[in-house]
């Protein structure tokens, strides 16, 4: 199937999300769409999948112009989509999810679960996508869930498969497997639109690369183009892919974690016997696939979760039983992984958000009253220092771009003296320009002698910042290695074992190293 997009435009009010986009996807090609967060990739794909109506322009399938009023039409035309956030019902089985919307029945609307399971088995053997049709989605690792999404699309006879940021949640090994799957699909004639902002992946698997910036296709490139070239096209200016930093001037141990164990409300041990230490003047990077205990570790450090065993010490003082306020007062800076949830109050102004955890200090309050003048001066200074692009200090943080929202959080946390900085996913959903800026500030904080703990699922970020890398898997620290350790080795640790089979089959195997 040949899919053409002609002059597709989408406007939301006065904002143009997609501006006259032209693309052609040839049968059996892997077409990469490269662009930053907010460049308009998702809008384009949602139009292609019938979730949004285009303002102008046409979608042409095999020479015939088509319009998609709903995903049903798009599916009927042979377009399948694997969404970034999986569209799977967690409490349903694999087979039920695959058949949803096009159920196998034996008359009277009675479900034929056996037939549905057969379909799954058939597709999984044909495309080499191992998955158990009777397993519940919520019990499967994300890599396998993604396979279910692909099977679901294929069961609808998709000829063009859209993969929206499919690698964001995967281990390096799972990414390799996904790429193998993509090549296999291509061999069997399915075209793939591969959306990503990761340059390495594009080069590894793409046949053709289109770069989108601010809603426009700014160019196409062959996969042989260099990473620097691609990054420049994506951002619109020369970018520095590596952070400049001096060798670490390592000081004394500031934060130490011993045998920390956390049990979640459902009774699972989400953090198992973790022992770590962060030293002043050094960045400790914590690598690992999402959901392997990093969130709980960070929460325990901040006092947001009470550990079930183990101790946390700050400068030798036991802070295991501290609440968040005591932890912050003791000198821990915190950049949460989900800024809109934990980092700021969306409807509060930039000015108010800049003092969210400082308002009690003498500088900003006197008795029961806030010192509005001091708060205003603080806001003006921070906005300037951190280059926060906002209309005014009064603007609600919700209406800023992701990068600027994050800068507000970072600016606030950096505006008091820190002993330890804990930053989880400090640059998630942030544009390249802001990433550079935030990384520089983190390194500067390190050079001031602060112990920095960075939690990130992006290995690139870990490599850019860390002086030491701890890898987490299944609630444990499975290794602490130096920054020059090769990617493959860390990837194996992230997958939990040397064999690398753990994530693929979804079974628990023991870690050996």
């Amino acid at each position, binding site marked *: 199937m040949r899919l053409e997009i002609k002059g597709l435009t989408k406007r939301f009010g006065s904002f143009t999300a997609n501006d006259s986009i032209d693309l052609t996807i040839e049968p059996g090609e892997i077409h990469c769409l490269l662009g930053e967060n907010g460049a308009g990739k998702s809008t384009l794909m949602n139009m292609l*999948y019938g*979730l949004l109506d285009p303002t102008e322009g046409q979608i042409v399938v095999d020479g015939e112009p088509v319009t998609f009023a*709903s*995903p*049903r039409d798009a*599916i009927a035309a042979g377009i399948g*989509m694997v*969404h970034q956030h*999986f*569209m*799977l*019902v*967690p*409490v*349903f089985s694999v087979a*039920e*999810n695959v*058949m*949803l*919307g*096009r*159920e196998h*029945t034996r008359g*009277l*609307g*009675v*479900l034929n679960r056996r037939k549905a399971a057969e379909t799954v088995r058939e597709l999984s053997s044909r495309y080499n996508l191992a998955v158990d049709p009777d397993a519940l989605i919520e019990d499967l690792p994300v890599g396998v869930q993604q396979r279910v999404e692909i099977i*679901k699309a294929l069961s*609808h006879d998709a000829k063009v498969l859209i993969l929206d940021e499919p690698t964001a949640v995967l281990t390096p090994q799972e990414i390799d497997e996904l790429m193998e799957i993509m090549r296999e699909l291509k061999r069997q004639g399915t075209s793939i639109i591969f959306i990503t902002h990761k340059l390495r992946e594009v080069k590894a698997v793409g046949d053709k690369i289109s770069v989108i910036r601010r809603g426009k296709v700014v160019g196409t490139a062959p996969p042989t183009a260099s990473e620097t070239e691609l990054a420049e096209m994506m951002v619109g200016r020369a970018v520095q892919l590596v952070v400049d930093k001096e060798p670490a001037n390592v000081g004394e141990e500031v934060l130490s974690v011993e*045998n920390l*164990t956390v*049990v979640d*409300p*459902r*009774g699972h*041990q989400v953090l*198992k*016997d973790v*022992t770590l230490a962060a030293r002043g003047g050094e960045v400790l990077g914590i690598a690992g696939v999402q959901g392997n205990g990093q969130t709980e570790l960070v929460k325990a450090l901040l006092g947001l979760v009470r550990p*079930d*065993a183990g101790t946390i010490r700050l400068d030798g003082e036991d802070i295991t039983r501290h609440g968040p306020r005591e932890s912050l007062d003791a000198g821990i800076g915190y950049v949460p992984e989900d800024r809109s949830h934990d980092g700021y109050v969306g409807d509060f102004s930039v000015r108010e958000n800049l003092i969210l955890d400082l308002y009690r200090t003498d500088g900003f309050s006197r008795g029961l009253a806030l010192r509005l003048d001091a708060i205003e001066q603080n806001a003006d200074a921070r906005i300037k220092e951190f280059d926060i692009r906002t209309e005014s200090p009064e603007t609600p943080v919700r209406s800023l771009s992701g990068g600027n929202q994050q800068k507000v959080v970072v600016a606030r946390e950096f505006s008091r003296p820190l002993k330890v900085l804990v930053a989880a996913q400090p640059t998630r959903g942030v544009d390249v320009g802001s990433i550079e800026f935030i990384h520089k500030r983190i390194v500067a904080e390190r050079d001031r002698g602060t112990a920095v703990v960075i939690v990130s699922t992006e290995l690139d970020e870990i490599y850019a910042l860390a002086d030491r890398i701890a890898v987490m898997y299944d609630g*444990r620290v*499975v*290794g*602490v*290695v*130096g920054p020059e*350790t090769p990617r493959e*080795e860390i990837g194996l*640790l992230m997958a939990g074992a*040397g064999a690398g089979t753990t994530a693929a089959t979804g079974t628990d195997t*023991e*870690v*050996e*190293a």
Partner: protein
Amino acid sequence: MGRMSAATAVSSTGAVAVRDRADVQRQVKLAVVYGLVLVTLLAFALTTSDSTVWYTLEERVNRKESPPVEANGALVLWPAVAVAAVAVALAALNRVPRSWVGVVVHGLVGVAFFAGFLVWVYADQANAGAIVMTNPLPGTIRLATPLIFGALAGVLCERAGVINIAIEGQFLMGAFFAAVASSLAYSAEMGLVGGVLAGIGMGALLGVFAMRYLVNQVVLGVVLIALATGLSSFLLSQIPNDPDVKQYLNEPLILPRIEVPVLSDIPVLGPTLFNQTLLVYLMYLCVVLVSWLLFQTRWGLRVRSVGEHPKAADTVGIKVNRIRWQAVLLGGALAGLGGAYFTVGSTGSFDNGASAGNGFIALAAVIMGRWHPVFASLAALFFGFMWTLQAQLAFLDKIPGELLRASPYLATVIAVAGFVGRVRAPAADGEPYVKS
């Protein structure tokens, strides 16, 4: 790889030896609850001096046809104490299994408690044989009927992602219009039709405000209950007292009992299950029907998918709000049938507040039954049982009547808070679906 092994320090054991807090809580909870049961049963056993009780398997005492039987209650009391003691021991050692065996243990302790309690209440009579234990089961089924309809309505709506706390309101309107329809048509069965239509009407109101105008569904439910209370009361006051008019509006026929041939001759169970009104038989059918619809059919799969992850359903072409509308209207119809119980199903003419809070208990049954039609129905049966027991024991002076009257609600609070534990509502329950 050599460098890696030098740099890593991995414990080769699985989980760390930390006792899971939830497990400790469960152990303590079970030990305390079973312990209370044991202490109570022991008190019953020790304070009973003359343990002779009289019972009959009939619902009412009929001294001519089946004279009451004399029995020694001690043969029940002491085994009940033994069961509770074993359960306490198991709980203290944390040996109560988590599987269905554990459920059987809970069930046995519950049965032991009620059996011991009944013996204690009926024992030590001044006049031998004056007060006779009767069969509480037929009453249980009758009182549970509206609750089960209401619970099924709640399950359907909430499985589709629409919170329905207005079951009470649907009951009231169903009850009123069942009375009116039955009086007009001079037929009890037509009353059921009237109830269904009124329930659908209330369901439609819920649907319009929840899905079209995206009103907060909890607030909406409260408002709908207030509306139904006021509206039914107003309409009732508009019916003139003139007997010529009133007989066409609020003097409904009552559904007759129908004895199912053969089946109703089964001892104990026969009269309990198969000597009931048409509405009760419809209730059996609806429990089976709703379970089948939800878990065996295409429609049910779609209903559950829009209640769990509406966006996923949308991306495979399922019209989320259309499915939700169907579930809400079907739920309204069921709640309307439940409402009909309060007029044509039992007492006849409509009175203000005829449903007397049953809708709220039905809501509790939904939660206690974990949004599952069968379990919710079982929870409703439990409430029906408590009410029947309370009615039967009301004229015995062993325990204060006030405490007895409060007991079903106390049991609700304890059951919902303590026994059900962590329950998971459908993930998108109460969240309107708006396409972005």
